[in-house]
């Protein structure tokens, strides 16, 4: 009896250790039950542009190799709620003054080369990212308003992150991906930033690339294919609810296919398993192939909007042309311009019906952040004409364009980047509608870099009237741009004089800072709603519309997200929970 108790106690102790060590991937993230899952097989995907490096400190493009093989950090988001949950940390505590978060690191995690993962790995990674000479793209994320965020090792499995001020996006920073200190540390000590930059180029032997995530590099053929294989060390502490190690797949192959038509052809031929087509033509070809029984696949049309925006912005800094400057600074004028944007026509014509109109800076896909009571200055030419008349433009000249009582014609230039067919179409729609109310818009498509140069120029006199462009890269914690909303921001595109010109800009600037430091989600959302109200009245930029996300997959695959989770933010599946049915 006594012996049995000892064994039982031992077993319990073991179980608690195992629990502390294991991250269980919730059943609600997948449609498949652990019992239906088959292990093994290869998932085949494709990307448009080639990879450039395996080095996590100098990689710059989205969807880079380091972020594929090892995507996670101390915390991650639960796609079913959007909340931050402990991941490589087993728990965390936030200090009373909200300036420190202390993380207990999960014990028993190993790098793919067998070495334990400890606090040192985070410290070294942070040191290298914040070395100016390395030129890491993550550099800026470790600073708030120019003040540094610092990491402190309490012991091997305890890490403290200190923030210069309370920050709503604190966890997004804490979620940075650790890389092995025992690989990068010695080089950094010996050769500094220059040594780091030379590491893990594409010519590196894949066996030397160490990962904490689900994948290891098996082989890479330049411009052609990246083959990843399961990282067994990951499966030791990542399990499904039945206790099976993850990922289920043996391999994950990514073909580099520069042409979207060729990608589609490969998907139709059954040679790649996942695709997110963006044009109506591609979507209908996939649907046709499915209907005619030539392809066994699933496509979710209009699964969600995408996390990017398209908008028209007017230049408030035109000291050389006071007439235009006054016009562009008038919210009545901008409201009139919003009334001539036929967003439904944009969705129908530009996106073939597969798009979503936009009214504020918050991407429509971030549903919980969208203020439903915000006024929308919808397409309404009478209303536009009325507002313009109030501004003194009630007469028309011989060509049918509006003039004020001094005979000055209502006319301005509009530019977008050449080669972006969708933006060019939007511009043409706007030009046509403007003509109906008597506004003359001269449209030109110019080189992208020239456009960006004009848009981001600063001072009292900037060289453009209006531009159509888009932004992407938002945040679920606080969906307002840190360098868009503040008047000194680099992307405060309408007014780059360096100071607020409209009292509502000042208000937005203040609200932005308040929201960013508000840690209570509900309160923060209220501030966000208020900001959207002011944005809608001020209309610093006129939002147009964006396309939608339409994921497709070959039915060889199982383990996609439940429908409610499929969106541009969470994607179609967790690769770790994906398996091959046949």
């Amino acid at each position: 009896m006594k012996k049995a108790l000892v064994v039982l106690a031992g077993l319990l102790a073991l179980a608690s250790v195992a629990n502390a060590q294991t991250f269980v991937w919730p059943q609600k993230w997948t449609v498949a039950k652990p019992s239906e899952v088959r292990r093994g097989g290869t998932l085949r995907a494709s990307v448009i542009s080639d990879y450039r490096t395996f080095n996590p400190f100098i990689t710059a493009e989205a969807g880079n190799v380091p972020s594929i093989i090892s995507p996670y950090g101390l915390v991650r988001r639960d796609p079913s709620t959007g909340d931050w949950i402990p991941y490589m940390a087993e728990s965390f505590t936030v200090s009373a003054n909200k300036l420190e978060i202390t993380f207990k690191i999960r014990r028993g995690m190993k790098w793919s080369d067998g070495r334990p993962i400890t606090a040192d790995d985070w410290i070294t990674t942070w040191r290298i990212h914040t070395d100016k000479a390395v030129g890491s793209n993550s550099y800026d994320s470790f600073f708030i308003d120019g003040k540094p965020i610092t990491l402190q090792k309490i012991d091997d499995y305890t890490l403290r992150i200190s923030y210069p001020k309370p920050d709503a996006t604190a966890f997004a920073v804490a979620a940075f991906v650790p890389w092995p200190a025992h690989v990068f540390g010695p080089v950094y000590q010996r050769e500094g930033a220059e040594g780091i930059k030379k590491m893990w180029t594409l010519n590196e032997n894949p066996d030397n690339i160490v990962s904490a995530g689900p994948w290891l590099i098996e082989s890479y053929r330049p411009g052609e294919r990246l083959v990843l294989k399961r990282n067994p060390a990951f499966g030791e502490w990542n399990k499904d609810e039945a206790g099976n190690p993850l990922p289920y797949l043996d391999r994950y192959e990514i073909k580099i296919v520069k042409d979207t038509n060729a990608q589609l052809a490969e998907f139709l031929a059954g040679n790649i398993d996942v695709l997110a087509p963006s044009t109506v033509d591609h979507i209908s070809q996939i649907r046709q192939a499915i209907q005619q029984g030539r392809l066994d696949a699933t496509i979710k049309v209009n699964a969600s909007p995408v996390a990017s925006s398209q908008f028209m912005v007017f230049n408030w800094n035109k000291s050389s042309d006071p007439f235009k400057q006054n016009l562009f600074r008038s919210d009545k004028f901008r409201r009139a311009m919003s009334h001539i944007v036929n967003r439904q026509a944009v969705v129908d014509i530009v996106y073939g019906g597969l798009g979503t109109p936009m009214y504020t800076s918050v991407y429509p896909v971030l549903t919980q952040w969208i203020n439903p009571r915000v006024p929308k200055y919808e397409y309404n030419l009478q209303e536009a004409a009325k507002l313009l008349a109030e501004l003194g433009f009630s007469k028309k000249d011989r060509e049918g364009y509006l003039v004020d009582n001094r005979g000055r014609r209502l006319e301005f230039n509009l530019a977008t980047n050449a080669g972006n067919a969708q933006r060019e179409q939007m511009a043409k729609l706007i030009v046509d509608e403007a003509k109906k109310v008597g506004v003359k818009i001269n449209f030109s498509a110019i080189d992208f870099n020239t456009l960006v140069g004009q848009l981001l120029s600063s001072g009292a006199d900037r060289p453009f009237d209006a531009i159509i462009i888009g932004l992407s890269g938002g945040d679920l914690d606080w969906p307002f741009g840190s360098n868009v909303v503040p008047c000194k921001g680099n992307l405060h595109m309408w007014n780059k004089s360096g100071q607020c010109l409209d009292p509502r800009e000042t208000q937005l600037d203040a609200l932005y800072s308040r929201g960013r430091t508000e840690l209570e989600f509900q309160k923060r959302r209220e501030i966000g709603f208020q900001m959207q109200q002011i944005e809608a009245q001020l209309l610093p930029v006129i939002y147009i519309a964006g396309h939608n996300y339409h994921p497709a997959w070959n039915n060889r695959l199982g383990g996609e997200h439940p429908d409610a989770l499929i969106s541009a933010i969470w994607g179609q599946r967790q690769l770790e929970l994906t398996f091959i049915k046949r």
Partner: protein
Amino acid sequence: MTAYILRRILYLIPTFFGATFLAFLIIQMAPGDYLTQLELDPKVTPETIARLRAQFGLDRPVYEQYLLWMNNLLHLNLGYSFAYQAPVLEVIWPRVVNSMVIVIPSTLLLYLVAIPIGVYGAVRQYSLGDRILSFLAYVGLSVPSFFLALIAIYLLLQLKFRTGTLIFPVSGMTSSGFEQMPPLRQLLDIAWHAVVPVLVATANDIAGLSRLMRGQMLEVLGLDYIRTARAKGLSERVVLYKHAFRNAVIPFVATLGGLLPSLISGAGFVEVVMAWPGITPFFLDAIANQDLYVIAGFLTVSLVLLMIGNLISDLLLAWVDPRIRYD
């Protein structure tokens, strides 16, 4: 002859500096630079971008950048790619080798097919065969290769839908699982992938070259010495191949030197459409990103090969054409 070669080599030096400077200048004249894209990233501060500009040396005057680059070049260092953060040669070389897999067979095929077609067209002028070949040549000349590639992909897919098998792959250079194959299977796999791109890449050129050959041959066949040869009672075969063909082919010898730069310059848009990992898609990316030293480095290598190629062409001509003397 030796004096001539030396003189030609001396001429190459100013040409080289002039051409590289011009290339460098044109790339630099394009608005913006490699970091312009990053400026629209809401997460990156202007200070960071300015710092990166300084690190990449993009904040210096153009002539200074050129001199630095030239200095590296004379040490046989093509410079550094911003995007890959690696030496240019290191990132370009594998792509060039991949392109050669298409370019070399396609060049051989071109000469082997186009020249006989041209000769046939000249000897049997206005016959039914000549008319059919002429028609095909005009079609081949007028359809751009990227479109031909799209048509090929479409046909392969239709065949797959009807028969359930892919006769040739739709894109790429190797199959999934290539790394696990034995060497011979790997070779066959690449060959199998190369068939369609090679045919597509060659189609346009065959059309052009065969018309040229036909014209040349017709011109030679109308000359006096051919009439003399026939009057002597030589067999038609000897007249055609020993006398006419040898002289008609001389202009093509001159084009052999030009093949040298085309060896590395890739097979063109076929590579993009059929996802062949060659130099073309890579180079287009470099241009789109303004990856300065990749563009400049690649142009420089092409330029050197072009200069050497031209020299070889001239020497070959002198060797095969007794009417040319370099003294």
